[in-house]
């Protein structure tokens, strides 16, 4: 069985996942096969703000979307998940991503050189995926988890342009870990 939800240029031609088919437990194998090449790579613990901060500084972010994401991610690391500001940040990014299944480019970003736009977009997708992962981890919100899995699909579709990147490695590993736990909790027979 093939995992049909990753194809080139998912950033610009997003998958809508509408009326996706059902294939039984074999589907987990297909999904895992796609993630497997990116597991066991060097991972930094991005659950700690100090590591996230160093990573964000190293990116030297310039594009508006990435800077906004980084600022709001910092707030999430420093706020209680029950805080209304935390909830607003998480919900607004879930909505923004899910409505278009991609991150919009601002007019200012369109002014930048093409290469810079692509790099900026990759950074934005990576930071957004971390924001969703943190949101899910802190709140158990499946809307955030759903976004996180879709973002991993996009990131894998552009992995050749991203790698090597420690945040990417971390995110794929965490996605697999979290879903393996959920599958186990639901008593589904699938041993990986």
């Amino acid at each position, binding site marked *: 069985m093939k995992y049909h*939800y990753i194809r080139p240029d998912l950033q610009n031609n997003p998958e*809508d*996942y*509408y*009326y*996706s*088919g*059902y*294939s*039984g*437990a074999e*589907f*987990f194998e297909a*999904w895992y096969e796609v993630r497997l090449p990116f597991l066991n790579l060097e991972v930094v613990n991005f659950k700690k703000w100090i590591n996230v901060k160093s990573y964000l500084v190293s990116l030297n972010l310039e594009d508006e979307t990435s800077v906004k994401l980084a600022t709001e991610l910092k707030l999430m690391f420093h706020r209680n998940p029950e805080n209304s500001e935390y909830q607003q940040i998480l*919900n607004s990014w*879930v*909505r923004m991503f*899910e*409505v278009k299944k991609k991150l919009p480019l601002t007019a200012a970003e369109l002014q930048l050189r093409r290469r810079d736009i692509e790099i900026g977009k990759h950074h934005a997708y990576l930071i957004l995926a971390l924001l969703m992962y943190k949101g899910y981890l802190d709140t158990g*919100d*499946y*809307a955030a*988890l*759903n*976004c996180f*899995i*879709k973002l991993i699909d996009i990131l894998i579709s552009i992995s050749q342009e991203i790698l090597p990147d420690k945040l990417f490695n971390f995110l794929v590993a965490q996605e697999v870990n979290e*879903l393996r736990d*959920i*599958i186990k909790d*639901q*008593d*589904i027979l699938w041993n990986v």
Partner: protein
Amino acid sequence: MECLNISFLAAQTSRSLAYAQALEDAGIKIKHTLIYSDGSDGKLGQPARELRNDHRYFGDILLPRFDRNLQDIACRISEHVDEVKTSNVNDIEVVDVLNLIDTQAIIYSGYGKQIVKDSLLQLYKPIIHMHAGSLPRFRGSTTIYYEMLLTGKCGVTGIFLDNGIDTGKVIFHRLYPKPAHWIDIDHVYDPAIRADGLVRFLKSYYDKNFTVEEQENSNSTEYYVIHPLLKHIAILGSK
């Protein structure tokens, strides 16, 4: 039961077919049905996949059959049937037909991804929508799967549509069991439990024995189309 003074606004979908069959099975007659379709949307307005269901019931829930024709059933359950060639629920012709017909309420069964706009909402007839999810907790799209994942049940909530997303006043709620693996959820079970809920609500509507309650929306999450991986966990999981 006497004929209910209600319109049924029906897109050419598996859900509309389920509603019509459930009304027919329950012996409920309505005044009017308006079927809308631009004719280009394939079988039942869904992706080009042959829909099939050979089972009549799951427990006591009637499952829709796809070898029936919506127009034919509409003629059996309705005093009057109109058809409009459009796929847009907010099309002026749809609004005009519903405005002219003298009914007290509208049963809504539209295409996915469309939002009912003010032109219909301002007809000042309650628009009955059966949502596959327990409100206010499960708002948005594909909530049947999220509710299965988190609770192991499938909720159906009847609401009077307003201009928010699943925020209208609640007129019905019922929990249904998680379906067996062999049932297609998108085209069979989801439409079937909504149809079952609709029939139950219409019986209470006829008896004037139902309540209308505001939702407490402050803590609800809005869900979007579920990723296939979560969909598989929802179907195969023990919860």
